[in-house]
């Protein structure tokens, strides 16, 4: 009987919990978590978007790690191994389709999350850092998409990367021509310096002048090592900040008091779970009914396929680039994005002033503009 008693004493769930608590004191954390509340009102749905983005990131992490078990980066092996995943590996088509569709859904929900945060003015004091870490996460998400796109090494992935890598060089060339015209003597060396500077980034990423096996290797390293760790770090800060400040209640609702607070745990947590299950239903339907395609292997000497166009989340930029000179378009994007990112500085107030109104209109304009130019871009493809 003695050993049984000892076992009971030291290994009963309660005893183990106690031992663990002494070493890892989670009690205070749970205490804080139990007091966390979420405001519920008619715009509460937007609060799910961040959670859905987070869930999709986890899906990407898991499906990405699984793909690593079969994917072989390299000019000779990238396309062959993805082809093998799609046609020979059990459920390989499923894991890859989940990863590709998941990436698209993640970009989509990150955008929705950002616009909803913008329109609820969740960037205003004291949430500036939450906003900026969010902006960094958005940029990282898009970089994930861009680097991952090359890895299957098929026709479209090759050309998408080529276009992306050439853009800074083209812009520098256009800017250089202008500089040469405007500045008489120093213009020539200045424009050459600009061109040289613009080439450095793509050179470093490509591992040379051309897109080669080394480029796959570098994009791969970014995609599976550097970006994930940076993303997880920034995400942690973002989430801690959200815990500190809580959800932003829109001003009008705050004033009218037309809301109630529910505990995060378990109420809102269950609601989050519900939304994640729904999101995964959507994702698995897309992956199963429309498995992600794989084009023919990239061939650097071949001509670009007719009607080549970027993924939907670059479509608006693509359309604007078609309509304006590259320099002007890129200048506009940069300026617009800087204004967007710096909104906590030019609209810091919590009162409804002129600036707050301008910010709201800017938000609506940005959403409408993105949708308009995206549709325009797709319409242009078939014309």
């Amino acid at each position, binding site marked *: 009987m003695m050993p049984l008693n000892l076992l009971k004493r030291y290994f009963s769930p309660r005893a183990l919990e106690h031992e663990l608590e002494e070493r890892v004191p989670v009690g205070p954390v749970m205490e804080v978590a139990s007091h966390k509340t979420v405001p519920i009102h008619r715009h509460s749905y937007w609060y799910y978007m961040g959670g859905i983005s987070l869930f999709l990131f986890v899906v990407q992490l898991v499906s990405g790690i699984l793909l690593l*078990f079969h994917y072989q980066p390299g000019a*000779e092996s990238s396309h062959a191994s993805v082809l093998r995943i799609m046609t020979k590996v059990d459920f390989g088509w499923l894991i890859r389709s989940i990863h590709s569709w998941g990436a698209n859904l993640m970009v989509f929900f990150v955008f929705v999350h950002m616009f909803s945060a913008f329109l609820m003015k969740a960037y205003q004091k004291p949430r500036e850092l939450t906003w900026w870490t969010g902006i960094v996460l958005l940029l990282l998400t898009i970089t994930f998409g861009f680097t991952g796109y090359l890895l299957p090494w098929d026709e479209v992935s090759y050309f998408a990367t080529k276009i992306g890598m050439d853009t800074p060089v083209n812009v520098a060339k256009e800017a250089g021509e202008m500089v040469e015209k405007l500045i008489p003597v120093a213009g020539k060396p200045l424009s050459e310096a600009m061109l040289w500077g613009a080439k450095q980034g793509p050179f470093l990423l490509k591992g040379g002048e051309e897109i080669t096996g080394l480029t796959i290797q570098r994009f791969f390293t970014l995609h599976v090592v550097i970006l994930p760790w940076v993303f997880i770090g920034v995400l942690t800060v973002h989430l801690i900040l959200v815990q500190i400040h809580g959800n932003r209640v829109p001003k009008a609702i705050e004033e009218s008091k037309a809301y109630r607070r529910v505990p995060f745990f378990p109420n809102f947590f269950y609601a989050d779970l519900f939304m994640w299950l729904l999101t995964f239903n959507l994702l698995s339907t897309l992956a199963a009914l429309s498995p992600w395609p794989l084009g023919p292997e990239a061939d650097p000497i071949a001509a670009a396929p007719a009607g080549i166009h970027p993924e939907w989340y670059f479509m608006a930029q693509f359309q604007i680039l078609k309509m304006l000179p590259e320099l002007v378009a890129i200048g506009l994007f940069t300026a617009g994005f800087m204004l967007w990112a710096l909104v906590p500085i030019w609209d810091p107030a919590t009162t409804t002033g002129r600036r707050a109104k301008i910010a709201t209109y800017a938000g609506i304009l940005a959403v409408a503009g993105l949708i308009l130019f995206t549709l325009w871009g797709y319409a242009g493809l078939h014309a």
Partner: protein
Amino acid sequence: MNENPKPGPTPASPRRGFIQWLLGGLTALYAGCFAYPMIRFLRSGGAEEGGEKVTQITFGEGMKLKPGEFRMFKFGSKPGILIRHSEAEFSAFYASCTHLGCTVSYSHPDRLITCACHGGRYDPVSGKNVAGPPPKPLTPLKVEIATETLMIKV
């Protein structure tokens, strides 16, 4: 702001135990929906992968074939098929069926390259798909006869 009732069944009711049990079962089932494809995915092996792209191999065995015989060979990581039609006539192809990628074989009595998976048939001289599901001809390889040996090239 109004108070919210704590969700969940009242504690210690017998139904609660049943419900908890069900919830556990459902969660396990859902986890199973993920685990099954993942395990199948990880268990799928592949010995056929190779590194370098091969453009040419020497295949001395090929000279030992009698007319009407064939021999399989490895062209880098991919399978190839060499057929000797007569003393001087050889043909070689990548042996992957253009339908779903099974490895093809040669049937001398019918004078056809055949695929056992879905019944594809190819002409052994031109590689043209003559029957069955294959949408395209087999990809041909060049055969060069040197003294005493035989070279197969892209």
